[in-house]
């Protein structure tokens, strides 16, 4: 399986804050902290690059594939049929990528916005790959 991936849906949002990449699932209220190599891989993977082609060495590409599988298991990315973008510089993975899951804000984030389920076609609902 050498496919690419994309962010699993509009509930998954992310932003970089001075080098810290924060990913948030608005449907579950879970948020995620990535270390620098995790953040670099996140960017490349969500741009559609195939994880197995991302590393500078076979070991690094294996690490990238394992990381993509972890992101997929967390419901943050899904396989994508979209064309893979042009090749990019391999990523030298200096430390193993990591993603930490936090749910201390979940109940508050899920309670906060007004859910207009009629207008938003079923939102809130879990991304299909969660659970």
């Amino acid at each position: 399986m050498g496919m690419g991936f994309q962010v699993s849906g509009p509930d998954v949002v992310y932003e970089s804050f001075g080098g810290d990449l924060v990913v948030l699932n608005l449907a579950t209220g879970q948020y995620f902290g990535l270390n620098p190599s995790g953040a670099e891989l996140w960017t490349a993977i969500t741009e559609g690059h195939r994880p197995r082609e991302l590393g500078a060495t076979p070991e690094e590409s294996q690490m990238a594939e394992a990381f993509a599988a972890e992101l997929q298991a967390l419901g943050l990315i899904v396989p994508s049929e979209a064309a893979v973008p042009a090749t990019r510089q391999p990523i030298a993975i200096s430390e193993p990528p990591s993603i930490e899951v936090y749910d201390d804000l979940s109940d508050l984030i899920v309670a906060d916005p007004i859910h207009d389920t009629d207008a938003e076609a079923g939102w809130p609902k879990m991304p299909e790959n969660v659970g």
Partner: protein
Amino acid sequence: MSYGVVIPAHNAAGTIGETLRSVLAQSVAPAEILVVDDGSDDATAEIAADSSGIVRVFRQENTGPGLATSRGIAEARSPIIATVDADDIWLPEKMERQLAALSKAPPRSLVFARHRQFSHGSQDFTAGEERPGMTRSDLVFRKEVFGQIGDIIDPVGNRGDMVDWLARAREAGCPFIVLDEVLVLRRILPGSLSYGKDRERDRGYLAVAHRALERRRQRMKEERIE
């Protein structure tokens, strides 16, 4: 137990009258109502001022709902504070129930209730989705708690200010008590600050999550030092 009601309001002329009527109709009446008009260019302040003699209106340049709420709490003289958005509605026994709960709870508790959503313009207040209401419109607490937690900060996008403040309160050990009864009606109003998904406004939640990450790192650092 005497309580004050803080209402941050921005261009809420179409809804704040109904909010104020529901506050004034409480079975245990408030001692004061503090409306912070956060840079409105409509009749919000006039409608609020005309609604009752116990209403004080503070006008300010637009700062966002969090700082506007903080200002109202700072101006309040009552020992107990309840907050409500300028478009939501309290059911008549809301404060009676929550004051009773607060009087039996640990002093630093934050007391909430359940709320039910309703569509703006509809008179059907019974059919909407019900949820545990950990929002501004449900919150009741002792004013002294506010000084311990600090101001409510407005993240970019003006969304998530209460998520941030409530998270800080919980980290500081304030117990959360959510009454298992619908006491608040939350208005579905397309275009309002909390309505639906909005890519720009939802960035506020990301900023709040980042702040929580930074606090967590700080705590871990302090634990290592100890």
